[in-house]
């Protein structure tokens, strides 16, 4: 570790960034923006909307759309780092949205207090669902995949029970402000998402928590031998994942002030997993990169917006999205990169790739 960091400090920042696994995600992000600029040279322009007084522009839309994905991607990163997976994030989003909408439509006062209570209640239930995942995985020892698959199915059922199967709307200006308002011109959702990511980053990188999570992911047995108690950490990680999914649920329902029980958070787990993978965290667990996942979330939001901006027909959308993601993953793959490196440096270095892909990457990771 110390050798790594001393070597890293002698390299320039540029070289360091280039060796990060998420550099290709940044390249892809810039490329998408350039393509959009090609269609409309004013794509990146931000203007003040005369009617509403808010900043408006495509970049602002992207930031706003990326906030919920960012939340679930950060939660997913921590869970994946422990060798787990959380398939229930989309359903937890639906539950959180259902709870808050049902609460506010029943209360009906539209006050700030009600908005706060609704959010608190939604986050508490999301945390409880996360705790169920955590206990089943750590104490009972069930497979994370199966456990969270169960919560995924049960969660959407729960959302349907809460709203009696109906799409439920509520009106509350304070709650709506969360998704649609601005602070100093910036979308509130993005500001909140940034603060939450910063808090999580400080928690895992300024304390030993991050190292403990990584050690459980790299070798749970060795971690236990070294005196790390996995039960508490696993429960904490799944609870954090649940709460973050709850925040994402509040973001996406507040945007339209309606919870659509069959659609809110649908396939969100896929976006979260993709963001994590694009960000360079291995699904095998261990070392993780929060920065990478945040960039991954931004990339997915940009991709979604680009598809509409370029008027790609709806039937071709999934294929386009898949193609972009496959290309990024290929570029990140160590084996493919080694192949290119070998070809470039000629036959003299016909050595096997320095690290096998299964091994955790060596980059020193900072949030």
């Amino acid at each position: 570790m110390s050798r790594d960091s001393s070597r890293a400090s002698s390299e320039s920042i540029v070289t360091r960034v280039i060796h990060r696994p998420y550099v290709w995600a940044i390249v892809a992000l810039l490329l998408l923006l350039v393509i959009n600029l090609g269609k409309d040279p004013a794509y990146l322009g931000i203007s003040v909307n005369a009617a509403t007084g808010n900043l408006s522009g495509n970049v602002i839309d992207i930031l706003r759309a990326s906030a919920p994905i960012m939340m679930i991607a950060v939660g997913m990163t921590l869970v994946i780092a422990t060798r787990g997976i959380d398939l229930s994030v989309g359903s937890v989003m639906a539950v959180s949205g259902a709870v808050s909408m049902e609460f506010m439509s029943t209360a009906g006062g539209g006050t700030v207090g009600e908005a706060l209570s609704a959010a608190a209640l939604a986050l508490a239930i999301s945390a409880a669902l996360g705790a169920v995942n955590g206990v089943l995985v750590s104490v009972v020892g069930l497979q994370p995949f199966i456990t969270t698959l169960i919560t995924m199915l049960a969660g959407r059922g729960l959302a349907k029970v809460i709203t009696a199967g109906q799409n439920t709307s509520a009106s509350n200006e304070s709650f709506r402000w969360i998704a649609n308002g601005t602070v100093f011109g910036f979308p509130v959702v993005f500001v909140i998402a940034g603060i939450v990511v910063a808090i999580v980053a400080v928690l895992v990188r300024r304390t030993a928590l991050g190292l403990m999570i990584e050690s459980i992911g790299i070798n749970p047995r060795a971690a236990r031998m070294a005196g790390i108690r996995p039960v508490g950490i696993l429960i904490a990680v799944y609870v954090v994942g649940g709460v973050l999914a709850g925040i994402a649920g509040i973001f996406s329902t507040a945007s339209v002030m309606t919870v659509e029980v069959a659609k809110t958070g649908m396939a969100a787990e896929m976006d979260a997993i993709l963001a994590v993978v694009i960000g360079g965290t291995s699904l095998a667990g261990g070392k993780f990169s929060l920065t990478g996942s945040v960039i991954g979330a931004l990339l997915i939001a940009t991709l979604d917006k680009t598809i509409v901006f370029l008027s790609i027909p709806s039937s071709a959308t999934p294929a386009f999205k898949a193609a972009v993601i496959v290309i990024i993953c290929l570029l990140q793959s160590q084996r493919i990169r080694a192949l290119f490196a070998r070809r470039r440096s000629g036959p003299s270095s016909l050595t096997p790739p320095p690290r096998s892909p299964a091994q955790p990457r060596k980059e020193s990771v900072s949030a």
Partner: protein
Amino acid sequence: MSKSTKFRSIAGLALAGAVAISLAACAGGSESTDAGAVAGGELVTVGFVAVGPEGGWRTANEQNIQDSFSKDNGFELKYAPATNGDQNSQITAFTSFIDEGVDVILLSATEATGWESVLERAKEAEIPVVLLDRGIEPNDTELYTSRIAPDNVGISASAAEWANGQFPDGANYVVLEGPPGLSVVNDRNKGWDETIDANFTKLESQSANWSTEEAKSVFETILKANNNNVQLVFAQNDEMGLGVALAVEEAGLTPGTDVKIITIDGTKAALEALAAGRLSFVAEYNPLFGDTAIQIVKDALAGNSVESEIVVPSVTFDSPEAAAEALPTRKF
């Protein structure tokens, strides 16, 4: 040795006992159901292979069917919603209804294709099948008795006619569709495209998966891509239309004056928005056809000939006043 034979005989006895008890339980069970059927007398058993929770429209439709086929009307309805919209679970439910020997099967298929073999089996078992709302592909009318549904092509054609009247000089418009490939989406596109005047420009046709949230996100980008130069939106369901209205408001424009929004379905939420002037035209896709379904089922059981295609009449709402008038009695 003797110990083991003793154990074996005890185990054998226990096993025999268990079998006897379970057999008795089985017999008891079947007796009681037989008795129930006899006590019910003339009740017609109806198996309803349904879609399950999907949105306001579907809930209203399935509730209406369940209310109509009540015991008071002489029916015993068995309701089998699909699990998470999965066609497999529908086929399983359909087959078990055939095995149970129900008198009639009602089917709202989640997918249009893949029904030939089970419909063939129902035909062999001489169980009439009535399709509700959703059709099947290929549409072989030999395989089912009748299909009762509102006319998607006609409804979207009536929406296009209204647009033609509103914009005699044409307009730039956007279509927000449901998921690609659904027969509903194809029919609604067909009716619209056939009827809309040639001086209209279709800027874009995107899917927002029937969702308010997605429609809002998609339409805010479409507005930016076209510098707000959109006068008309054809949203193929109410939820997406409401999402478009939100995106229009966010962009600082006024829905109804700057951008006119057309939606299909006619749920309460959409009529409320129409009454408030946020939507401009709502075409109803009438979910309440339980009485028609009862009539068809009775005719089919009596051996009368029935039309293979029955269109449920639907109305349209083109003004806030019309919406306000219909709201108090709106059931869905």
